[in-house]
């Protein structure tokens, strides 16, 4: 029964993705990716997206990452009912997902090999790009489970707080470096979505 449900879920998700992909492409040019642009490290985020310690009550253990796509915030759970909150950029409509994953790999100034499905949607993207300040993955990347998704930096700090990506979560380079130093490989990452009507 569970397997059948899971299959049905995957099937529905696949249909959803198939339906939403051309739509997203037609409606929104991919303003979020601009390989080669050098990140403006002096860019000042709105207070809403600035890193800050907030009250956060949860049953998840300290050290867990909780991503709230609807809020565009990433929480790193701390002891004592607190969390460090970072502003993030999330997936475009149709490119959002939820679930529980672990950080499986960490990389500094990662190289970028856009996955084939991304190349298909955005043919102008490079097939490979070496790590560096012009790389859309920015200063750090944390791999999420076996998915193609990452928590990474960005060369477009102005996209924090928006829905732009293909499903990845982006932070400004300063913040992603801060987060990177706080979380080891194996860290639990909970990704939450807005409820559906």
């Amino acid at each position, binding site marked *: 029964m569970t397997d059948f449900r899971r299959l049905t879920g995957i099937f529905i998700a696949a249909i959803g993705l198939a339906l939403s992909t051309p739509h997203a492409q037609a409606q929104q040019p991919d303003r979020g990716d601009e390989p080669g642009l050098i990140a403006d490290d002096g860019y000042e985020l709105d207070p809403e997206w600035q890193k800050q310690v*907030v*009250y956060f009550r949860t049953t998840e253990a300290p050290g867990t990452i909780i991503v709230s796509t609807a*809020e565009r915030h990433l929480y790193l759970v*701390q002891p004592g009912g607190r969390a460090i909150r970072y502003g993030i950029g999330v997936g475009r409509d149709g490119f959002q997902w939820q679930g529980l994953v672990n950080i499986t790999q960490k990389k500094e100034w990662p190289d970028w090999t856009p996955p084939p499905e991304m190349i298909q949607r955005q043919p102008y993207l490079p097939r490979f790009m070496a790590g560096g300040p012009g790389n859309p993955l920015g200063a750090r990347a944390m791999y999420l489970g076996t998915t193609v998704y990452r928590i990474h930096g960005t060369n477009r700090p102005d996209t924090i707080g928006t829905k732009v990506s293909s499903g990845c979560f982006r932070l400004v380079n300063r913040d992603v470096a801060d987060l990177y130093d706080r979380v080891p490989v194996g860290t639990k990452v909970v990704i*939450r979505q807005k409820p559906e*009507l």
Partner: protein
Amino acid sequence: MRTFRGGLLIGLAVAVLVGALAVIYEFYDTRTLKRTVRRGEVLCGVNKGLPGFSIPDDKGNWTGFDVDFCRAVAAAIFNDPNKAKFVALDASERFKELQSRKVDILSRNSTWSMARELDYDLYFPAVAYYDGAGFMLPRARNKETSLDLTGSKVCVQAGTTTLLNVADYFRANNMKYEEVKFDKLDDVVKAYDTGKCDTLSADVSQLYALRLNLSKPGDHMILPDMISKEPLAPVVRQRDDDWMMIVKWTLYAMINAEELGVSSENIDEALKSKKPEVMRLVGTEGNYGEQLGLTKDWVVRVIRHVGNYGEMYDRNIGEKSKLKIPRGMNQLWNAGGVQYAPPMR
């Protein structure tokens, strides 16, 4: 013939008496819902001027979190948020004025406490905003918790509960501190801004408002900890259950709407939803609205005109406002906070 005329007179007298009683009954009917409906507007007792919560502009248009909540009640009853009329009340007189029926509801940053319900014969239906005393300090001090504030000079207003809360907190945690107090809030802020103390203590909602007036607001932060409980809630009179139920469930409906993802932006979509919880909320299933003495679509009216709890929060005091108070404790219970509404079923 005589007996017929006598009977007629007695009948007439009885009719007049019944009529008079009915008029008197109508006039003295203490049920607020009935009186409100007959009057055609809700009388809301609000704070004279508290940025983010209730403040009039120079044309007399009121805005704020407390103001919007009263508009939500008006929308639930009249399908028109402009049927809320605002009466500015002082802190000292507010409970007596609610009791003497000058207003139908207090929507005015009042802390819910047992003594207030008992002393004034009032009722606080549900918590609209969890507040509490906290600390503001320069960002450069790089502190993450108020337990790190030992040895601090604390600026605080004299004669407030904050003063007592600070004393209790430092004593309970075996921390030394120095009290720097002033009678006027302006002097407290000035002293802090000119570096005469290390931290300023007041209710957290107030700290965010005070920060706006500092010479460099961005250089200061408010710690997430609260050292006292100040649950702010609307207030109604006791033994006025129909009215109390409307006020209580209007707030809970707004919180439940946020939890279910129903907002002013997707309310038309929500009306087509087949999810039972959403259907009960918007009245496409069940008739809770009618049981409250309203219409089936009462929540739709609230959400369409005022929005859900999160929308009301963001617009007035949250990230989309000048104050930018993080949701903190006022986030939903399943997203890091303690805002929790009983289910509507």
